[in-house]
């Protein structure tokens, strides 16, 4: 298509000038052109929609209709006068009426061309008309229209109610029948003013009803102007001014009530205030009840005279009126429906099922009129407001009821607000308390962490340092925690790090790292030497994994304890034991020498008492020697000085040899060897024999009054098992676990310990562990024990 054709340009201009929107849509539904009216009507810029799909501008509810019309048009059908709501830029919808036809090019349908017209206003006018009619009919005000002569043209329902005449009775009549006779000159005044085209508002006057009753009314009289500008009649809105006057007062009350209700969030106080302002102007009595699902209880009874209040409260206690299921208050509370007793006559009271005493009281109260309205918030009924008149000339009517209902709704909102506020306050207080508790316990924990002598750090699941206390930072050579967190790797450069055996310590494999990979509670004793100052320090580093709910490790806590002092003490103690036992050895050597000489002297008197004593002393001396030897071994174990040879040997040969030697030393027990297995193991033959001697000697020592010990061997998976079984005093499970501890000694039934330092098994365990083996005991009290060790086969 050539857009420059003169004919085309003309069309374009026409389209642009048209008050309706002319548009084209491609087959895919996108706008390809829009005329200028589109911008005027919808507020959108054309360029905002060109290329966009029309479906996006159509009201979602109208979209199916739009799509049907679109597809039908594409199939060649022209569509007329269908209505769609179109979204304006402001976001509201404009009702449009559309016509559409297929857009042809070379005999083929290439899209849709259409015209849209904004019919919102037309529709509005029509709707308004309908609306006005309804409004006039349903209005609470009497609406009367008259022609220029004053004859009545229309008369609505409210006019029927107010004046007592039905519409057919009055239409066509002159309205003067409504004006009292003594007020006839008023008519002239009105007609003069109206003829000038003036509007009369809030015009207070009096009218006569069909019953002949004179009523106060307030009128709004306005001229009706014809199309040519001439006044063709008047319309009158009459409202009963007795209501109106009350309404005004009630509006004031509602404003007051509103102020009171929302002035405080303590609804007990506000409801009391509310009730007080109602008496005596609105009612003689005002009582308010508030309830929940179980009970309905009186919050306040208000009366002008305080003595009357006391009296009424006393009554309420006596009769429990609120809980009286038959009471109007209870009914209103349950149903949510207001009740109005316009006029309570003596007859009505007598006919009710009230007791005689109640009737007497009601009579004394002189109840004339009662309103009970629910205190409502949405559908929830929170309580009841009751208004009681005890004046002969005050009877409540619908307007009072309406006021009371509004009051009830307002109070309901206030009560609900107060309840919500209290709930929220409780919740807030609770949270604050928890928060404070948390804060104080967190502060406490923080203070503990900061002031503890141990260094404590926290690593996240990736091993990154996320927390360190002061002790940790100082122990790692940092000046502050901040510096440590900033550069957590720096410490390793400042220290030479060694393990317990004086070998270089691999700092990339600290306990924290190992805990992350699942090792259970790893710990290392680590020796730090400050490269600059030469300061030496021993630390125990323990790591504990923290697991989340799904047992995944979420963090690791490291505890770094300085054990330099205790290490130093331990070393001093070991040195002392070592020196002391050496010092002991020298005198023992000479004693032994002299004992030897003494024996020589008594060679010829073997049976003499002195020869016997010499033998005793000599035997005790041997025991003393053994103890000193144990002590020495122990201190060597502690200081790591015990040296181990490493050579292959046959374990069965060693077992046979040891048993052979020990058989010489005992005449109480037989030592049996069962299941001898020849296996080579690698290690220190003397140390293993020390273990065997220890186990067999123990078996003998702890089975007095028994006569055998059984040693047996067994093939394990990749190791060889040696067990020593006795039938002696045995021990319970707890003891069996502790038996390998340093200085632990088994007690007999009389709680007496056996001689010895209690370090034999401790040393045995150390030796077996140094051979990468295992040693353990199973035992039963009074039945005996089995001690076993397993050593890897060479």
């Amino acid at each position: 298509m050539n857009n420059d054709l003169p004919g085309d340009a003309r069309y374009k201009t026409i389209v642009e000038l048209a008050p309706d929107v002319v548009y084209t849509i491609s087959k895919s539904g996108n706008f390809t052109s829009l005329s200028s009216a589109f911008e005027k009507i919808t507020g959108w810029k054309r360029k905002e929609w060109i290329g966009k799909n029309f479906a996006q501008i159509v009201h979602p509810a109208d979209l199916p209709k739009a799509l049907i019309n679109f597809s039908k048009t594409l199939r060649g059908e022209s569509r007329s006068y269908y209505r769609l709501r179109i979204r304006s830029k402001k976001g509201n919808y404009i009702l449009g009426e559309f016509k559409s036809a297929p857009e042809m090019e070379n005999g083929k349908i290439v899209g849709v061309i259409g015209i849209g017209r904004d019919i919102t206003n037309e529709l509005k006018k029509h709707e308004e008309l309908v609306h006005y009619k309804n409004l006039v009919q349903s209005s609470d005000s009497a609406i009367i229209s008259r022609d220029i002569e004053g004859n009545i043209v229309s008369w609505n329902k409210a006019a029927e109610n107010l004046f007592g005449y039905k519409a057919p009775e009055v239409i066509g009549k002159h309205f003067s029948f409504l004006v009292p006779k003594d007020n006839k000159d008023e008519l002239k005044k009105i007609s003069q003013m109206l003829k000038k085209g003036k509007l009369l508002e809030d015009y207070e006057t009096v009218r006569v009803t069909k019953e002949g009753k004179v009523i106060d009314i307030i009128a709004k009289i306005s001229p009706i102007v014809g199309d040519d500008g001439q006044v063709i009649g008047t319309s009158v809105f009459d409202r009963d001014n007795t209501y109106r006057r009350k309404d005004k007062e009630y509006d004031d009350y509602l404003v007051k009530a509103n102020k009171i209700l929302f002035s405080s969030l303590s609804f007990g106080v506000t409801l009391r205030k509310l009730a007080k302002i109602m008496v005596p102007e609105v009612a003689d009595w005002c009582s308010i009840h508030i309830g929940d699902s179980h009970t309905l209880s009186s919050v306040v009874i208000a009366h002008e005279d305080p003595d009357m209040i006391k009296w009424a409260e006393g009554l309420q206690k006596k009769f429990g009126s609120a809980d009286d299921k038959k009471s109007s208050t209870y009914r209103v509370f349950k149903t949510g429906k207001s009740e109005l007793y316009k006029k309570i006559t003596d007859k009505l009271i007598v006919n009710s099922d009230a007791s005689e005493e109640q009737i007497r009281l009601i009579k004394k109260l002189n109840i004339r009129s009662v309103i009970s309205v629910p205190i409502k918030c949405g559908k929830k009924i929170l309580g009841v407001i009751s208004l009681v008149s005890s004046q002969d000339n005050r009877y409540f009517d619908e307007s009072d009821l309406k006021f009371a209902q509004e009051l009830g709704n307002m109070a309901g909102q206030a009560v609900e607000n107060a309840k919500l506020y209290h709930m929220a306050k409780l919740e807030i207080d609770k949270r604050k308390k928890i928060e404070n508790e948390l804060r104080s316990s967190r502060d406490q924990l923080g203070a503990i962490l900061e002031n503890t002598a141990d260094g404590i750090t926290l690593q996240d699941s990736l091993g990154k340092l996320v927390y360190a206390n002061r002790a940790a930072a100082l122990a790692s050579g940092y000046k502050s925690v901040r510096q440590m967190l900033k550069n957590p790797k720096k410490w390793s450069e400042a220290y030479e790090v060694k393990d317990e055996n004086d070998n270089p310590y691999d700092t990339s494999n600290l306990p924290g790292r190992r805990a992350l990979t699942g090792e259970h509670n790893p710990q290392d004793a680590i020796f730090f030497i400050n490269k600059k100052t030469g300061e030496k320090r021993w630390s125990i580093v323990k790591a504990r994994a923290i697991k989340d709910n799904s047992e995944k490790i979420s963090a690791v806590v490291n505890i770094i304890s300085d054990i330099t002092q205790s290490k130093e003490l331990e070393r001093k103690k070991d040195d002392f034991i070592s020196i002391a036992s050496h010092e002991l050895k020298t005198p023992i050597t000479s004693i032994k020498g002299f004992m030897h000489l003494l024996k020589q002297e008594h060679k010829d008197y073997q049976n003499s008492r002195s020869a016997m004593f010499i033998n005793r002393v000599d035997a005790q001396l041997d025991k003393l020697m053994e103890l000193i030897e144990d002590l020495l071994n122990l201190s060597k174990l502690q200081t790591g000085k015990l040296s181990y040879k490493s050579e292959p040997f046959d374990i069965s040969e060693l077992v046979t040899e040891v048993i052979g030697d020990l058989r010489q030393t005992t005449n109480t027990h037989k030592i049996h060897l069962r299941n001898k297995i020849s296996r080579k193991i690698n290690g220190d033959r003397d140390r293993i024999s020390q273990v065997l001697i220890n186990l067999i000697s123990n078996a003998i020592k702890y089975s007095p009054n028994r006569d055998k010990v059984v040693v047996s061997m067994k093939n394990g998976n990749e190791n060889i098992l040696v067990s020593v079984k006795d039938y002696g005093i045995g021990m319970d499970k707890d003891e069996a676990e502790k038996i390998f501890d340093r200085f632990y000694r088994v007690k007999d039934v009389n709680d007496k310990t056996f001689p010895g330092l209690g370090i034999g098994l401790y040393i045995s365990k150390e030796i077996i562990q140094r051979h990468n083996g295992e040693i353990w005991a199973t035992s039963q009290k009074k039945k005996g024990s089995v001690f076993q060790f397993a050593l890897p086969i060479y």
Partner: protein
Amino acid sequence: MKKILAIDDDEAILEVVKFILEENDYEVRTSENGRISGILDEFEPDMILLDVLLSGEDGRDIARRLKSDKKTKNIPLVMISAHPSANVSAKAAGADEFIAKPFEIDHFLEVVDKRLRH
């Protein structure tokens, strides 16, 4: 009669060693310290027993001196100590034998006898 010189800072040890060796027909001289040049010249021992740790002196220094002196280097030297671990260092200093304190008298006599028969 073979002659043995015993050096130890502990008087009781010297006394008992002297008794035992004399019982077994050795002639014995004792010294509580390493100043023994006079005794060596005059007594001409066939064997020397030497404690590793003397008060204020290291027996191993004495051993080295003895073993570097032409006159004494062939005299069998038996060193004694309460430190079993001194075995290696004693031998390194020139000791021909090492006996740990406390010792069995029979074992002690055996060693002495063996060395003197060489």
